[in-house]
């Protein structure tokens, strides 16, 4: 290496210029913005951010707020059920489509199209379908089941399941596609071998295919989980958080505190909690995925 090199800064200048938007986004918005929010979650900001430090007060208040606790509970119920159901339904549908059937493309298109629709559209359609006076409940009652009163949108105890039905309708198609791609990646010879040995198909799926698809399952779980924390539009459209506060979720709490409640500090604290939740999911995954075999 020669000792006199052109100024390092100007080497590869075009590439650096092309990367300026990325560097700004990464450093200012993602890195800077996150730090800013965390720092200001320790202040007493109301309508505008102020540097009046109050320590962990906002967090203490947050965890003493009934609405936040309900939001967390809802997110837990919705999150766990939606993970379990999307994985199971997605896997079963993918397995059905993987049976060398005809019209596979048609079936796949039908199952996937809801994913193209927004959560707002999804929420509004299901709000109408589950309408207790005119929707599905009315049809069921008209069929002779007079006492049928499954009213997810007006019954605080089960409202979160009404949202779950809509969420699953919208999202399972994607999971099915990811699973199907994973199944197609499995060597055909494994199927032949298990057929020769006379192992029934369902056993092959449970004991051979699923363990082999572990990476697909993990990726899918991370995708579902990181999307779950943000569940917002669906709730706003379908129930608006109601009845009362029965279907509130953390993302809505943050928005309402910041932009409607003029209580910025609470919003910052709540969003920091969301960040911590994502980190708890993400860090072990990133560690498993990239930790051992760091690329050069």
């Amino acid at each position, binding site marked *: 290496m020669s000792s006199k090199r052109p100024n390092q800064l100007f080497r590869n200048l075009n*590439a650096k210029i092309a990367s300026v938007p*990325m560097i700004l986004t990464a450093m200012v918005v993602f890195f800077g913005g996150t730090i800013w929010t965390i720092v200001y979650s320790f202040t007493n900001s109301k309508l505008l951010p102020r540097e009046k430090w109050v320590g962990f007060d906002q967090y203490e208040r947050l965890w003493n707020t009934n609405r936040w606790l309900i939001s967390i509970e809802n997110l837990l119920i919705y999150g766990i059920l939606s993970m379990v159901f999307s994985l199971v339904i997605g896997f079963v549908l993918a397995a059905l489509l993987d049976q060398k059937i005809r019209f596979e493309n048609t079936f796949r298109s039908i199952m996937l199209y809801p994913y193209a629709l927004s959560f*707002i*559209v999804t929420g509004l359609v299901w709000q*109408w379908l589950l309408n207790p006076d005119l929707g599905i409940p009315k049809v069921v009652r008209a069929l002779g089941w007079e006492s049928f009163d499954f009213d997810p949108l007006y019954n605080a105890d089960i409202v979160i399941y009404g949202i779950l039905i809509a969420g699953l309708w919208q999202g399972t198609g994607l999971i099915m596609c990811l699973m199907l791609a994973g199944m197609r990646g499995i060597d055909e010879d494994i199927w032949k071998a298990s057929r020769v040995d006379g192992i029934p198909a369902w056993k092959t799926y449970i004991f051979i295919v699923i363990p082999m698809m572990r990476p697909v399952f993990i990726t899918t779980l991370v995708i579902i989980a990181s999307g779950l924390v943000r569940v917002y539009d669906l709730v706003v459209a379908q129930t608006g958080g109601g009845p009362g506060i029965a279907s509130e979720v953390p993302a809505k709490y943050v928005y309402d505190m910041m932009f409607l409640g003029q209580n910025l500090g609470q919003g910052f604290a709540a969003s920091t909690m969301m*960040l911590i939740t994502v980190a708890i999911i993400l860090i072990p995954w990133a560690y498993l995925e990239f930790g051992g075999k760091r690329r050069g």
Partner: protein
Amino acid sequence: MVDPTGITLHGEVGAGADGGPRGPRPRRRFSRRNIFIYGTLIVVSVYYLLPLYVMIVTSLKGMPEIRLGNIFAPPMEITFQPWVKAWAQACTGLNCDGLSRGFMNSVIITVPSVIISIVIASVNGYALANWRFKGADVFFTILIFGAFIPYQVMLYPMVIILREMGIYGTLGGLVLVHTVFGMPILTLLFRNYFTSIPEELFKAARVDGAGFWTIYFKIMLPMSLPIFVVAMIIQITGIWNDFLFGVVYTRPDTYPMTVQLNNIVNSVQGVKEYNVNMAATLLTGLVPLVIYFISGKLFVRGIAAGAVKG
């Protein structure tokens, strides 16, 4: 990440030569197994199609028929009045010019956002793949991890940035927001694609004296049209369907379609007109649906790449 393009059809069973019957005995068409599989798939398909069907049917009925009848029944008298009303007369707040306003706003937001974000991300991905410089990977890693940070964390800092730039509440501001938050997934998409193009090609062009932009425009761009289409699908559907950024960074007269739709349907005043609501909902869903049915396989590729964005 799983590559959804890996979805391929199983090899068709080749027809035997012209001679006598060959190969395994054909399976009976109506075996119990087939009835089970197709039966299940058809039931499932009905579940997935039902909401779309109900939307269409409801939007074509008059209100009296909706109140009396069955939600699944086809309309006895088809009327397009709800569609006209949803498009041109439905009220949000003080404006009574229907969803057409939101539609126009969404178009004005989506078109520049898609173009700008793809231009920036493709050049950037190209720089990361072929012109690596010191420190690039650090920024890229931060960017990718940024894709997982809940948007709520960055909402307010972004408000401050936009306010400082003087574009808070304008459509231009929302375009910037979409460009920023679309960057992780698009940059990843382009970087991975450009990395997969054989390096010899790049080196040969270098030897011939081509520079950064020449290689980009003359070699990379013509070779990567499919990935540009995938990026466009991700961005158009993503931005069109966005609600959170729309509601935070715009004002009532610049609301995108999704926000306006939600305001129309969930407004508490007046009598609920379910047929108008469903027509409005369908209108909003139409753009992504059309893109979905036109783009077919590329859409699958796009959403699986975009799934990280959530």
